[in-house]
C-alpha cells in the first residue's frame, strides 16, 4: 500500500505555518458553499474544490472555505455566499469551477463582485 507522501515533512512545514498565522486569524473572509443533496447533485463538489484550490494557489491564508446545508433555493444551486468583514454578504448562484476561480481573483482579491453570478441578476 502506498503511504501518505512525507507526512513528517508536511507536519514540520505545517507547524511553522501555523506558528505564524495566529495573528491574522480573526478578520477572516469566508466562502460558504451549499452542500446538501440539491447542491451536490448540481455540482457543488467541484465548485468547493475550485474555491479551495484557488485560495491556496494565491496563498490567501485568511480565507476559509466552508460548507452549509440547503440554502433553500435548490434551482439556483450550486450556490455560495461570500462573507468579507465589513462588507455586505454576496450570494452567488449557478456556479461552476471556472466561476469559483473568478470569484476568488476578482471579488476576494480585487474587491469586484462578479455580477453575472450574483443572485439578483436572475
Amino acid at each position, binding site marked *: *500500500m*502506498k*503511504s*501518505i*507522501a*512525507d*507526512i513528517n515533512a*508536511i*507536519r514540520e*512545514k*505545517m*507547524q511553522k*505555518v*501555523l506558528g505564524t498565522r495566529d495573528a491574522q486569524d480573526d478578520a477572516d473572509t469566508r466562502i460558504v458553499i451549499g*452542500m*446538501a*443533496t*440539491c447542491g*451536490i*447533485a448540481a455540482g457543488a*463538489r*467541484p465548485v*468547493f*474544490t475550485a474555491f*479551495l484550490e484557488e485560495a*491556496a494557489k494565491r496563498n490567501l491564508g485568511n480565507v476559509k*472555505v*466552508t*460548507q452549509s*446545508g440547503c440554502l433553500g433555493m*435548490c434551482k439556483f444551486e450550486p450556490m455560495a455566499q461570500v462573507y468579507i468583514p465589513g462588507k455586505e454578504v454576496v450570494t452567488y448562484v449557478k456556479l461552476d469551477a471556472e466561476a469559483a476561480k473568478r470569484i476568488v481573483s476578482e471579488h476576494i482579491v480585487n474587491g469586484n463582485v462578479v455580477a453575472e453570478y450574483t443572485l439578483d441578476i436572475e
Partner: protein
Amino acid sequence: MRELSLHILDIVQNSIKAEADLIIIDIEADFTADRLSVTVTDDGMGMSKELLEKVTDPFTTTRKTRNVGMGLPLFKMAAEASGGEFDISSKEGMGTVVKASFGISSIDRVPLGELEETMGILLMGSPDRDFIMNYQIRTQSGLKEFNFDTREIKEELDDIPIDEYEIISSIKTYIKENIKETNGGLVL
C-alpha cells in the same frame, strides 16, 4: 447524481447531521458476482420507526414535507436502476446503516467517481469526526483491499489539524493512488 461518490458524500452528510462520531464507508466490488455494494454505517442519533418507514418510500417523498428529503430516495433509485438493491436500518440512539448495491456491468449504473474528492470535502467539513473507508475488489484472482482510517492519520499528525489544505491535498492523493492500485486496471 453523476457519480456514486456524490451519493456517498450526500448520504454521509446525513450521518454528520445525525451527529455521528464515527462513520464507516464500505465499498465492495465483487466482479465474480457483478455486484458493487456501498454501505454507510454511523453511530449517530438514528431514526424512529415511523420516520424510517417514510424515508424508504420514494413516492411519499416531497421536498415540502419536513424531515423527508431527496438524498435517500435518489440513492435507492440509483441502486434499483442498475439492478441492485437498497436497504436502510436504524435504531434511535444507536445509529443507522444505509446499504445500496449495484450491477457493475449495468449501463444504468453511474461510475463510482472521485472518492478522494468526497473524502476531502468530508474531512474539511467535519475534521473532528472520524471516517473509515474500506475499499475492496474481488476478482477471480482474489481479494484486494485498501483501508483508510482518519484515527490513524490524526495520530500521525499529532497536533496539526487534519483540515489544513496541505494535509487534505496529500490525503486526497494518498486515497487516489491506493484506489488506483487496488483496482489494478479495472474500471468502476
